[in-house]
């Protein structure tokens, strides 16, 4: 057992340890109860993106495996809408929170109006949410998502619209693009924290059929292959803003998580690794604690941004 104090503050979301989960790779938490006690293990968990009304998501196939420890997905935010989400998972999520794990609900929309409507519904119906993550970075939908978060103005506009609707912490999920500039714009609009990166758009073509291996032409790359790129972006963003960052991208080991912290992340979310190694989160948490101890610190916060260059 690590004797290091592991708790961190992700923009008002008080986490018992820096470990979070990446939206869309963690179901709504209960899928992992067979692997470990979610509420007792994580600092926070982030639910799948949910919109005001149900979304069907994209057609199949939504997934391809790539060489280089990577996958590509084009799920496109299939979700049942806020009401059904709360009805189906609210009680479980309240239980998770009661056990000490913060619950972050992710808000998605195709337009400013839809983001607003989803946030209003969440604010009203989801007392179990410790905070919200606004996803302006999904590369797999035609409107909203990455299309709105691609510029400082677009990102700021979403933030201006949703920020007044809740007093709970608002994290913004960013695309792997111009993270310093857009991060600053979001900070200026009152974001409490930033999380990055979302998947990197890629293409995988079946050269026999000349068609995409997925139903859409492009899809999002994730997994260990994107880790070094994600660490660099977290570092760039951390240089630019003073709000906390949740580092995401290819984290599969305690050392990967430690890199994120050193680069300036306050919390770290595990994504793709949850899929192929569903019991990885407790292992990563304990490896991270061991590393902090080996570094001779008494508080993990001493290691945030402690990269020396």
């Amino acid at each position, binding site marked *: 057992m690590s004797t290091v104090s592991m708790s961190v503050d992700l923009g008002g979301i008080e986490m018992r340890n820096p470990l979070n989960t990446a939206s869309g790779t963690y*179901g709504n938490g209960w899928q992992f109860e067979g*692997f470990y006690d979610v509420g007792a293990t994580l600092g926070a968990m982030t639910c*799948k993106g949910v919109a005001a009304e149900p979304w069907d998501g994209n057609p*199949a196939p939504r*997934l391809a495996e790539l060489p280089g420890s990577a996958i590509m997905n084009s799920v496109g935010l299939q979700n049942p809408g806020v009401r059904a989400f709360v009805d189906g998972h609210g009680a479980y999520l309240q239980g998770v929170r009661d056990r000490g794990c913060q619950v972050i609900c992710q808000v998605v929309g195709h337009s400013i109006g839809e983001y607003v409507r989803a946030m209003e519904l969440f604010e009203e119906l989801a007392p179990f949410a410790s905070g919200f993550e606004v996803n302006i970075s999904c590369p797999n939908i035609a409107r909203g998502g990455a299309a709105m978060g691609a510029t400082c103005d677009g990102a700021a506009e979403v933030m201006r619209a949703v920020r007044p609707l809740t007093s709970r912490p608002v994290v913004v999920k960013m695309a792997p693009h111009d993270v310093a500039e857009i991060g600053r714009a979001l900070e200026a609009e009152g974001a409490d924290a930033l999380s990055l990166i979302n998947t990197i758009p890629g293409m995988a073509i079946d050269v026999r059929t000349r068609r995409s291996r997925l139903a859409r032409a492009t899809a999002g790359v994730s997994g260990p292959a994107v880790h070094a790129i994600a660490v660099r972006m977290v570092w760039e963003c951390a240089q630019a803003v003073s709000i906390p960052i949740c580092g995401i991208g290819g984290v599969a080991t305690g050392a990967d998580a430690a890199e994120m912290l050193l680069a300036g992340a306050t919390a770290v979310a595990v994504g793709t690794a949850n899929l*192929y190694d569903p019991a990885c989160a407790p292992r990563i948490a304990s490896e991270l604690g061991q590393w902090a101890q080996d570094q001779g610190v008494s508080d993990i916060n001493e290691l945030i941004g402690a990269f020396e260059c």
Partner: protein
Amino acid sequence: MRMSTRTSLHEFVVVSNELVAQETYRMVIDAPQLAARIVPGQFMNLSVPGDNSHVLRIPLSFKRADALAGTVELIYAVVGEGTRRLSQMRVGDGSSAVGPSGAGWWLPRSEGRALLVAGGVGLPPILAAAGMLADARVGFDVVVGARTQARLVYPDVDDVMRYGTPAAAGTGSAESYDPDRALVVTTDDGSAEGSPAAARSAADGMADLMGGRAYAQVYTCGPAAMMCGVARLARARGIACQASLERMMGCGFGACSCCNVALVRGGNALCCQDGPVFDAEEVVW
């Protein structure tokens, strides 16, 4: 939210792993908890140690789980890198399986015979269904299709005739509950009959049987095009049809929404969580 039968992680050890037909292997794994809990039509998601450049697990149905012995029997085809490495696992090698996953077959909801239609490596879950039906004393007939004779997985194909018989139970000579069981074997190139003229699809075999007998339920697993044909035939006769679908799977336990199955009523189900077995009427083929 299904929290009752939780999917979890099982370390397993390879008990045997042998070539049983062209590019097709039978593997028995020792995984007592999994063997005790998995039910016909469910699947598991195996990792193969070695090449870290492929991270996803391999979803496999199973043929039979022996709760007493603690073993599960799988049949799989080598189609790519993952299954190729799986075929190289040796007796005593260990790895992990995530399971039991998804929802399995259900018994016919009305009285009457069942018709089982397997194509290629759709065979294992069909054999599991046969075992389930035999346990429930439901009569059934079987169609097994393959591309070529070399890909037919003997002795399993013949064995299915003995499911639920005293011979299978090892209790001597008493009568089967289902003495008229029929087995039809088809090959895409006619090689099972030794003649290209005998080339038939599993759906052809199914049509033949349906001509002679009434069925209450069809169970099918195989290539999508085959299952689509089977479902259409069943529908034309008003027979209920369960189909075990395949999708590329990210997780295999409902965490990633990668394995969608479009539904006739609109929206998508998840193959790994709501399936892999679906009512053929409910899915968009």
